[in-house]
């Protein structure tokens, strides 16, 4: 893998991690969704670059799916949902943004240490990619853990899934079927969660998931 290919792939994967941090920083739902759209766009670019670098045309399809579904359709749909639900309020984060960012930095360091050490024999590009992908996955989980709102849980989950796609495309020889099925499962998850959101709202007049806990005698 020559210099330019590697550097650009590195740049795009790093950009994805940066967008994850940007997700953590957002405290309004609509801007969170916008940043997620940007997150997905960067993913699409990274995947497209991998397609070019690995000379694997089917990865262009993956990139297209990422762009179409995750960067356009789902964010637009989510924006419409929060408009209909009328929730433009602040996100109720459990932990403050500052400590969350710090924890995120720690997670990125952790995934670098683990991945670079574990995959010593692997291809250099794949190594870096995997390290970044693991960071994105961990940051996605972090978002899910530190937010209360159901919509931000969905965003966290989808950014986590973006990390998985990044890892999958970084490895050579990933069959297209797997990627398509992953993409569709995300779409279905989105639909299910969307329906679920309206149901929660109907029942409890809010989509703060702690409202659910009251009804199952949650004890914290």
């Amino acid at each position, binding site marked *: 893998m020559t210099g330019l290919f590697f550097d650009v792939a590195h740049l795009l994967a790093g950009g994805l991690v940066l967008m994850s941090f940007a997700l953590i920083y957002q405290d309004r739902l609509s801007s969170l969704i916008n940043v997620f759209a940007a997150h997905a766009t960067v993913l699409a670019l990274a995947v497209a670059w991998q397609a070019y670098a690995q000379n694997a045309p089917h990865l262009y399809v993956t990139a297209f799916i990422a762009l179409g579904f995750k960067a356009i359709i789902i964010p637009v749909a989510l924006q419409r949902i929060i408009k209909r639900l009328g929730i433009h309020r602040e996100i109720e984060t*459990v932990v403050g943004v500052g400590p969350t960012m710090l924890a995120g930095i720690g*997670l990125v360091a*952790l*995934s670098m*240490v*683990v991945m670079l*050490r*574990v995959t010593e024999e692997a291809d250099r590009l794949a190594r870096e990619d995997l390290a970044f992908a693991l960071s994105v996955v*961990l940051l996605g*989980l*972090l978002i*899910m*853990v530190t937010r*209360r709102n159901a919509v931000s849980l969905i965003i966290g989950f989808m950014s986590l899934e973006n990390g998985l796609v990044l890892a999958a495309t970084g490895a050579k020889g990933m069959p297209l079927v797997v990627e398509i099925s992953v993409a569709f499962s995300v779409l279905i998850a989105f639909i299910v969660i969307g329906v679920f959101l309206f149901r929660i709202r109907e029942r409890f007049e809010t989509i703060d*998931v*702690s409202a*659910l*806990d009251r009804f*199952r*005698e*949650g*004890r*914290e």
Partner: protein
Amino acid sequence: MVTAATLLVCVALLLGISALAVTTLRWRGASTLVYGLCAAVALALLGLAGTFLIAGAPGPSDAVLPLGLPWIGARFRLDALSAFFLIVVNLGALAASVYAVGYGRREAEPGRVLPFYPAFLAGMNLVVLADDAFSFLVAWEFMSLGSWALVMAHHREEGNSRAGYVYLLMASFGALSLLLTFGLLAGPAGGYAFDQMRLHAPPPLLAGLALMLTLMGAGSKAGLVPLHAWLPLAHPAAPSHVSALMSGVMTKVAIYAFIRIVFDLLGPAQVWWSVVVLVLGAGTAVLGILYALMQNDLKRFLAYSTVENVGIIFIGLGLALAFRAQHLALAAALAVTAALFHVLNHAMFKSLLFMGAGAVQGAAATRDMDRMGGLIGRMPLTTLAVLAGSMAISGLPPLNGFASEWLTFQAVLVSPQLAATALKFLVPAVGGMLALAAALTAAAMVRAFGVAFLGRPRSPAAAAAAETDRWSLAAMLFLAALCLVAGVLPGFVIDALAPVASALAGGHMPQQARQPWLSIVPIAESRSSYNGLLVLGFVSMSAALAALAIHRFASRAVRRAPAWDCGFPDAGPMTQYSASSFAQPIRRVFGGFVFAARDVVDMPGPGEMRPARFKAVVRDRIWEILYAPIAVAVDFIARRLNRLQFLTIRVYLSLVFLALVGLLLVLAVCV
């Protein structure tokens, strides 16, 4: 030539019968058909295994099925040891199936018994045939679950569901221990076939650990104290023919597992192994029969007596281990033969006694001894069979129980040859415990037989009892006859066991068929010999002479007169000597220590109108010391962990997240 493949076909037939039972459940004759077919297959298996063993076990026969672990397959092997245990299993199965042809007709819900019964038989046969750890454990679990389903057949009766629960727990515990044993034996290379385990004996420390785990795994199934707790609950709960199988045969399969692992797979024996086995065996024998003496439930009494007999067998096996560790092949062969002979004998008479208990339960509609009585007049043939079984289990010559216990004592008497000082002191003590257990067994059997069959009926149901059906009688009398034959001609059994003893102990006892007058000589004629035929002749002669003398020279007229009633006319049947009364002296002697037994007498003062009360309190100390704390601890932990069920979604996510980060940290630090 009998091969393992032929036997596997028979086992497959049993599974087929199980399927047949499911499809024909609605049909009225299903029970007769299923049990009849089971009896036929058991007879075939018995014949095949018997032919193999009597031919001197000509080389093991292997069969490999393309099932199970892919790199091993399901291996099965027929060798001398498995042939002997196949005989034990299928002898019991044959008798129980014939018995069940009659007994099963009275079953209220045959659908809960019929499909599981052949599967249970198949499981036991497969355990004995298995030749790799995977097939062994699968067959073992098959056997456990099959018998569990049978224990739960009458799950609505009081106490049965608890019995099933305790049994399931103990069975899982035992299977887990065996799994770990095989893990240790297979070693890091994962050689799960028994062949590979034989080649690579584990180092001494691991072998000792494996022995302990085997004692827990096989011992919990066999009923070694203190792991016996499930046995007196589960065995009585099952239908009687299944109780007979569980007590008479399934405990033997567990003993097979112990012998297979410890004598065959574990490598050279060490002296301290035998110490552990001997102490456990002696404790089991004495405690088992003491527990038995405290029971009023006939079947529970028999179950505890099984615990005692398992103890006797383990004493024999412990002696064999001791002799083997000290390279005394002949003495080891004697001890192994004694243990295996007792395995066979116990399978016969305990099955017989459980069947008798089933017949009595059917006739008197109770299992409580204190509500029976006087059955000898109403069920004469059952009484005869049960009497034979009781005499055999008490070790009275010329029946088979005496022969095997006598052999065990002979092995005890060889112990001065042992070099290890600890054993020199321990073995005579164990011999004393064995003698105590034998004497207590006789007391216990007199108590059970006397209270149930003699005297006057203590309940209307017992007074109206009728003789049981012909099939049951045939099975019981068949086993009683076998007890007599094996007791009178023990030499043939010992000779048939010679290949097994040579495989396990590296030597065998002198050939007995060549001895003059069919006597048996364990080591040399100068030391000791026993002739069952002679004893039988003497017993029958003296009994006949005594009867003749009484009838000839005493008053010939039969007089019927009221019994002397101590001045209390019209004493009710309940005032007879009862099972609890009989047990009282022994409860007084041993009970204070073992059972924390107390007799509470509540005597009203003069002028008070309330009745006097007498209450005997017996506590199970093993349950209180060993099991109750475990139950409390599990309950405590479960209640603490229950809070995990009521966390919020976010906390669950955090737990997943923290677990992931923790694992990654471990990876980052350790790699």
